């Protein structure tokens, strides 16, 4: 005879017989949802609503297992059609040629590379959250890291499209890779473009490994839940299709089962897993800093005024993190409104922390803009100074007697407004704790970061050294629709992710709950005792015979 469970109520809760009560919380204007605490000695809760470990499983698996709201299918229909636009536009480009884009002999890199740098930059927030915040033991990362990593991979997919299609004869794009070919030609390893190819493909691969490895335990949870439902009721549950005698849960058990590689939550496994995870975080940290540095080398190693700057690597990295965090917020703020209980996982404190990072990185970017001007002046190079004044800065209404002004002044000033001025509202607590204002600023920052790349690429190119190199760039509808299409691809993939994959790192969130601590003895206060290891073992429950 085995002993009974010591605590009847806990047993019922654990067995799922006692559904968690609806814990309506009052919304305090100062502490918001209770997570904005100024006292540093008080640890703000990471998961709200006094959730048990089982609640976390139920909430997160519910996003995958239950039908999404009625908004999902129409929204998915729209974004997947937008995604298809990219396919159509790329096909049109392939059968017609790069002449369908607005770039020309003067501005020979335009929206293609702008969009490439834009998308690859977006990805950086995901790796920053999953790697750098992991090393810094920022536990609040656990509720946003999975979605941010997913976003990274989808952004890299969108980014990787552009170098492939902008080479003109895209069926020759494989020549970018160092593989033996009939002409016995090998690529030039001294070229930053080749470094870039390696950086981006490494980044995509490592992000995918990191993402997948994090999901292994959560796949196992989804697998086990499906298997348990099938054990209880082998012939129940919805079918895949009405006429097909295959249960959805059977399909889940096989697919999530295969992806979980037979994970069985063994602590011997967890030990190796945690080490491997830490190493991936450790190696991703220099990787994320290197990727955008190498992207910036594409420009910085050239001799073009406006590109040839040593500040580019850190400036690009800061900008990438800045734009990436804005995109995480753009995706997660609507998601936490649309999905039930998501506000308990992504609390106001999470939003505030991300708003602070936006403020910091936005100010770094602002500093870099200023420093570029300083160096242009300090270098004494007329070409360098003219790029900043007459290619970027000077609006027509301030033009001097010679009437010279920067034709793309509106792009430059949009960038300054969106990237430097708009995040400054986050100095005020009311703004950085308001989901609405964070969303507005994130939207502006996303636009601003796109303009930043446009400013760097197009305005530097459109008036280079000699007047023969002068020309304007205007996007064609194909340019615009291809970019719109990649936005569609990005959102489509993200919606599929929220629908079919564990959108939160369940096992990590559980580990951050107060009840998960090996020193928590369920005294009801939920606080940590702070015992050290090896203290005298407390009587375990005391309910056994």
């Amino acid at each position: 005879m085995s002993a009974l469970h010591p605590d009847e109520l806990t047993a019922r809760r654990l067995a799922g017989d006692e559904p968690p009560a609806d814990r309506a919380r009052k919304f305090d204007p100062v502490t918001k949802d209770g997570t904005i605490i100024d006292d540093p000695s008080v640890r703000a809760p990471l998961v709200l609503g006094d959730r048990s470990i089982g609640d976390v499983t139920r909430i997160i698996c519910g996003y995958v297992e239950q039908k999404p709201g009625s908004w999902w299918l129409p929204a998915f229909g729209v974004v997947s059609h937008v995604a298809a636009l990219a396919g159509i536009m790329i096909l049109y480009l392939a059968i017609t040629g790069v002449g369908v884009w607005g770039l020309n002999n003067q501005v020979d890199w335009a929206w293609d590379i702008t969009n490439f740098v834009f998308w690859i930059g977006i990805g950086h927030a995901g790796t920053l959250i999953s790697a750098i915040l992991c090393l810094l033991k920022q536990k609040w990362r656990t509720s946003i890291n999975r979605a941010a990593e997913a976003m990274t991979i989808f952004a890299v997919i969108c980014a990787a499209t552009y170098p492939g299609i902008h080479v003109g004869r895209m069926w020759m794009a494989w020549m970018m890779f160092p593989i033996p070919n009939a002409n016995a030609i090998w690529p030039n390893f001294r070229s930053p473009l080749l470094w870039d190819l390696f950086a981006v493909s490494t980044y995509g691969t490592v992000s995918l490994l990191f993402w997948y490895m994090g999901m292994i335990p959560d796949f196992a949870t989804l697998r086990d839940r499906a298997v348990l439902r099938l054990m209880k009721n082998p012939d129940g549950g919805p079918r895949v299709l009405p006429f097909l005698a295959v249960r959805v849960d059977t399909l889940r058990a096989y697919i999530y089962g295969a992806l979980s590689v037979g994970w069985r939550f063994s602590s011997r496994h967890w030990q190796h897993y945690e080490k491997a995870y830490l190493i991936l975080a450790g190696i991703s940290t220099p990787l994320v800093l290197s990727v955008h540095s190498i992207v910036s080398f594409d420009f910085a190693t050239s001799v073009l005024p406006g590109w040839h700057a040593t500040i580019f690597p850190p400036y690009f990295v800061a900008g990438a993190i800045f734009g990436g965090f804005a995109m995480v917020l753009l995706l997660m703020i609507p998601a936490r409104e649309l999905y039930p209980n998501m506000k308990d996982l992504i609390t106001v404190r999470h939003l505030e922390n991300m708003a602070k990072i936006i403020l910091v990185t936005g100010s770094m970017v602002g500093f870099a803009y200023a420093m570029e001007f300083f160096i242009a002046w300090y270098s004494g190079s007329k070409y360098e100074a003219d790029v900043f004044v007459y290619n970027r800065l000077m609006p027509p209404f301030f033009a001097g007697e010679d009437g010279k002004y920067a034709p793309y002044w509106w792009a430059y000033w949009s960038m300054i407004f969106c990237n430097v001025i708009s995040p400054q509202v986050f100095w005020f607590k009311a703004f950085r704790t308001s989901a609405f204002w964070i969303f507005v600023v994130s939207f502006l920052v996303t636009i601003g970061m796109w303009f930043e790349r446009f400013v760097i690429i197009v305005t530097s190119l459109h008036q280079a050294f000699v007047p023969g190199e002068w020309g304007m760039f205007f996007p064609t509808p194909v340019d615009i629709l291809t970019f719109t299409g990649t936005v569609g691809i990005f959102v489509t993939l993200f919606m599929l992710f929220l629908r079919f994959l564990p959108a939160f790192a369940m096992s990590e969130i559980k580990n951050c709950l107060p009840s998960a601590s090996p020193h928590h003895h369920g005294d009801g206060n939920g606080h940590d005792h702070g015992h050290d290891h090896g203290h005298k073992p407390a009587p375990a429950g005391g309910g056994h015979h």
Partner: protein
Amino acid sequence: MARARTKIYKTSAGEVVYGMMAEFATPADTFHAAEKMRDAGYTRWDVYAPFAIHGIDEAMGLKTSRVPLLCGILGLSGAGLGYLFQWWVSHQAYPMVVQGKPYGAWQPFMPIIFEFGVIFTSFTALLSMMAFNRLPMWHHPLLKKERFLRTSDDRFVICVESADSKFDPDGTRKLLEKCGGYNVDLVED
């Protein structure tokens, strides 16, 4: 660690016994039970928990993982391979004058040497984690046990394998219950 099975146990229904599992109420109980199991001298046993309980490897008396060592060795080898590959392409297979620089100068190879190191380290981390854990293993006696499958939700389980030299149907059960385990049950192979 003796891998060979010293004795084969069977359930009353005649099934071969894989081991004996017990549930524990909280991570704290599991942690302290693990310390007792370790001190009792068991070797082929494991703690199953929905997350990595903080410090459980010490409580179980596990040796340090060798994943980092392998990652270090293979990561550095990968970086070396990255250098050799670039040197071979630029110096041996297809020497090309670029900006008048020496064919085999290492400086411009650094970014790709770094990327090679990163990619080797990352694959080693994932694959060595799986190799040490003997994954993929889609079939396991515990995964057939309904009560065990709840570990992935919020249960804590300790399972002692019958292959452990100290395994004894009565003694192990008594110890598991003494540690605070409940629902002690045999697991069929």
